[in-house]
């Protein structure tokens, strides 16, 4: 997993609430497509027209947002299924950070297993950032600094965000959870030993 320290790039506004995992990656695609190809079908219904060509209206297809690694969106982003492929698909599009007023729980967790930074900011601030992004013309860069926990808009205004220290550390170090937990095998084994005495009905 890549380490996440800071990024500086355009931020694409996709201002709608409840962008669910089915919208991000339809189930029919998830099934038969390999993880590394998942992004080809990300936002499929929004990104392409009926004939399969790019929909020029979709934000990530607009030249002004080429190379965007940041997506700005509405409430409850990533709600819906537990499908982690939603994060893979977004990763594959080059996205590294989603800014929204709130996230679907499972999606939020999945982000950290894949080096993706979900940033929660107040709805008013998110709306303002989207507006700035829309009005600031081509390739106006936003900066995200994970160490300092700030989002800086092209006009220089900075907003700080909260993130649990543990999560922050993992992203900064590029560690997924298995690696961290396997350092505690002895503790896990001794827990089970005691638990088999306390709750024998769990073990057969």
């Amino acid at each position, binding site marked *: 997993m890549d380490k996440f320290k800071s990024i500086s790039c355009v931020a694409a506004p996709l201002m709608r609430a409840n962008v669910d995992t089915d919208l991000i990656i339809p*189930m029919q695609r998830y099934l038969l497509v390999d993880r590394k190809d998942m992004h080809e079908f990300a936002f499929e219904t929004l990104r392409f027209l009926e004939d399969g060509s790019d929909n020029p209206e979709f934000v990530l297809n607009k030249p002004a947002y080429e190379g965007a690694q940041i997506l700005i969106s509405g409430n409850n982003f990533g*709600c*819906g299924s*537990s499908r982690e492929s939603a994060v893979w698909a977004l990763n594959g599009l080059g996205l590294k950070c989603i800014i929204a007023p709130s996230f679907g729980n499972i999606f939020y*967790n999945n982000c950290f297993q894949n080096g993706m930074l979900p940033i929660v900011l107040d709805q008013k601030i998110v709306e303002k950032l989207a507006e700035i992004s829309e009005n600031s013309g081509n390739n106006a860069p936003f900066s995200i600094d994970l160490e300092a926990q700030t989002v800086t808009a092209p006009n220089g205004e900075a907003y700080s965000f909260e993130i649990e220290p*543990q999560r922050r550390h993992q992203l900064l170090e590029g560690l997924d959870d298995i690696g961290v937990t396997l350092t505690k095998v002895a503790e*896990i084994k001794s827990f089970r030993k005691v638990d088999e005495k306390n709750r024998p009905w769990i073990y057969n």
Partner: protein
Amino acid sequence: MPKKQTTLFDKVWNEHVISDLGVGFSLLHVDRNFIHDLSGSRALGALSEQGRRVMHPDLTFACPDHTVSTAADATHTGPRYEKCVDPLRQFAGDQRITFFDIGTHGFGIIHVIGPELGLTVPGALIVCGDSHTSTHGGLGALAWGIGASEVAHVLATGTVIQKRPKRMRVTFDGAMQQGVTAKDMILFLIGQEGVAAGSGYAVEYAGPAVRALSIEERMTLCNLSIEMGAKVGMVAPDEKTMDYVKGREFAPKGAKWDLAVAHWKGLQSDADSTFDEERFVNVEDVRPQFTWGTSPEHVMAIDELIPDPSEQSDLEKRNGYAAALEYTGLKAGQSLQGQKIDQVFIGSCTNSRLSDLQEAAGIIQGQKVASHVDAWVVPGSHDIKVAAEAEGLDVIFKKAGFDWRNPGCSLCVGSNGELVPEGGRCVSTSNRNFVGRQGKNSRTHLASPISAAASAIRGEITDVRKMMKE
């Protein structure tokens, strides 16, 4: 000293903490790791690639429910099986994981078979790579859905990392009216609270109206917790729960059973425990519910009129409502009753248990499905199918013109290729009415099994209470 936390949730959570990771996160022991053909085979594949073993194969149970065909004449071959089912079977064998195979005893939707086989017990910590894992909370288990990386984590370590959620209690009071089911109770709540209200909370469902529910109905209630944003939904175990679990195949026996019951009796929120949020619902206010839009919160009572987007003060809501109506092809101010439908689906981990099928069959007795409707019944498990056939439910359904199918997730999500025809309107007993969930441009109306059965007969969205009076 901070006050001791004594809710049902806290008691179960605390028993599973292996270590405190700080800032609210804990490393928790997993009692039951259910894996299936979507996230499970992928995660096991990744694990094998890394040369890792499953830490607790004895606590891991696999069943391919998502991608299997439910057609009577299915050969169970082809790309989906090669990609999802066959690898799961093989990895399960390699890693000594119990595998419930297609067409055999024990097979079915994982959230249906867990309780049915006695694998799900009160106070157990259960995870699965499917967001409706909350279903198991109906028996007082602490259960939630996890992502594919987390599935791999649980396989490799026997543990899950989770931030301790806050606690919410929803108290249901009063007595339910005729034609109203547990499905209507929970859809009503989601309609009141919205799809994000439970985000960050473990929800306990309590009150006399919940006590009055059967265990299967409590599972329906907990199943839809995730549609209110809550990963966890729980009902404290009681006598009914013990009776339900007792004697099931994997349930504890003998001395272990006695110990278990003594322990489970203590799994209740103490009278003085406090919750971060409380909600109250009088179930006398609940009428049969149907969704009209593309989110479970887009729900109304069957005798209400479709809401007007322009009357919503919140901009996001207004836009969301308008987009949903455009998608479902409905108009503000219309009644849902009488909307012509193309398909009916009775199934899914929400409503595919024996009692659901019995209730639906009770509505259709002697009547025929409207000729333009393709109506399906997909039992939740092999054993439910067998039990239903033993009491002749299959004959009732088939005589009425229903397609009586084999168990699986089927039309709930269409990952087995079974879909609503493009643009079709479907009354479904499942849990999600998202855009395209049941197939391209499919329009899903979530409802209870009896509402779905009534709608199949009439060929249109129907108030089941009218058929009950006839």
